[in-house]
């Protein structure tokens, strides 16, 4: 297997086996002194967010709640938006896990999110590069880089 654009020379860091990151809620890792919350979305890959909410500095990467949200709709209707968001533990602001954008215009402050990928059962993140950027391309592997596979609606 070879992976173009994924390696220490490109700033990527192997933060551990995928099994160390239970699906659903974030797990904190520290890379280069920066705390990142790793979110294992199973079939939809992994995400990495800074452990610092842009609103008031809450530990969103450690204690944020990963969930879905609702799309704008007509009064009294509810339309579930399957885009995954992370909800801050303090004031419950929601941010798109893919882009870091706050949900539906609640603010202009963006959560810092980083490139993340699963390759050969290992979780890689790039603390120096923020999403959305071109992701590593798996050329010859049964594993796949899944960070770009989610094609759901964006919460912005």
């Amino acid at each position, binding site marked *: 297997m070879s992976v173009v654009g994924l390696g220490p020379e490109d700033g990527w860091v192997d933060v551990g086996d995928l099994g160390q990151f239970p699906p659903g809620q974030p797990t904190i890792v520290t890379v280069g002194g920066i705390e990142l919350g790793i979110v294992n979305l199973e079939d939809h890959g992994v995400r990495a967010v800074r452990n610092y909410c842009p609103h008031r500095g809450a530990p969103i990467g450690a204690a944020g709640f990963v969930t879905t*949200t*609702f*799309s*704008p*709709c*007509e*009064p*009294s*209707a*509810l*339309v579930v938006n399957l885009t995954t968001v992370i909800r801050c533990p303090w*004031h*419950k*602001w*929601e941010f798109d896990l893919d882009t870091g954008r*706050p*949900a*539906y*215009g*609640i*603010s202009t402050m963006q959560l810092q999110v980083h490139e993340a990928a699963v390759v050969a059962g290992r979780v890689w993140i790039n603390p120096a590069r923020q999403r959305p950027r071109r992701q590593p391309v798996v050329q010859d592997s049964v594993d796949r880089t899944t960070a770009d596979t989610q094609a759901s609606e964006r919460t912005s």
Partner: protein
Amino acid sequence: MTITTNDQSTDTSTGADIRLVDCDVHPNFSADWLIELRDHFSPEWASKFGAREAYTTRAFPGASHTLPYNPFYPVPVGVMRGELLGPNGEMPATDAKVAAKQLLDEYGIDRGLLVPAGIIGVGSHPNVDVVTEVASATNKWVVENWLDVDDRYRGAIICAPQNANRAADEIARWSGDQRMVGVYFSLGNVLMGDERYFPIFEAAEEAGLAIMLHVSGAEGIFPTAPSLPGGTPTVQLDWRASWVYCYAANIANLVARGVFEKFPKLKFVFAEVGYTWLPDLMWRLDTTWRSTRSDVPWVKRPPSEYILASCRFTTQPLPETETDEQLMQVLAMMHAEKTLLFSSDYPHWDWDDPRATLRRLGHFKERVAAANAIETFGSRLL
């Protein structure tokens, strides 16, 4: 009677000749409301009210029909401007010509929006049949006794919110009269964002009429009246101070129920309920919305944006701040350049002298004096 249609829809006036609009003028009934309105009731209701013949206590010995009002918290100095009372204590603002002279002529007011004082609390009445009839009769009374007397007056169609479909019928009955610039919505004990009121909002928006609200005078007094926050006040002082929070709560509810999103062209005019609380309300709503947006996904923009686009407030009573600069700050925070409309509250005791109010409005003066009202009520005001 035949309802007059005064269709001025072809009026091409731009409003440049209108420099001062008073958005809160109170006609009074000169006598008991049943006597005043009896010629405007249907024969059936005139009989039911005992108003068909001479209305005396013989009709209802020991009893009488009363519209919702304030029996518990009187203003100890009286609620009318003392110098306007007649020689025998007659009520002021019972005659359209006299009122025009005292208010419109005296202060150079080009348009006066009428809110009949005797019916402001009808939204708290428990009997929708009574209120429907009273609203209809009062509309006829306003047209014949005021709008037909001086073309500077404008009216708001009084309706019974207790039954929104009937209210919509009343709106349809009068909306062809271009002198009617709004719909008077007397609050009850259900917050006005409730879906039951949507037929009223639909009818008003379709006809290009603003929704007018005013202190009902019945707040906290009847179980059918708007609830007051915290509990039961004791005197005029704490009762009066409590009013405003009813209206803040209604605005919050209008946001929460998506009414501003559903009726984006509709304007809501809040008269005599204050506004210095508005910046705080908007801040609280915006902050809460950022955290709870997913609870109300139909609220698609920050609540303050809806409020600034849809809600208007009248000046009286103008806040007596410690300094003029403080007043300017409050007015800036509430975007008075588009949200604030001049009002005097003539002929009430706590009215604001138009000249004094305009002097204190600084750079907001021209917008508040007329431009905002023209934008709010549109061509019907011209």
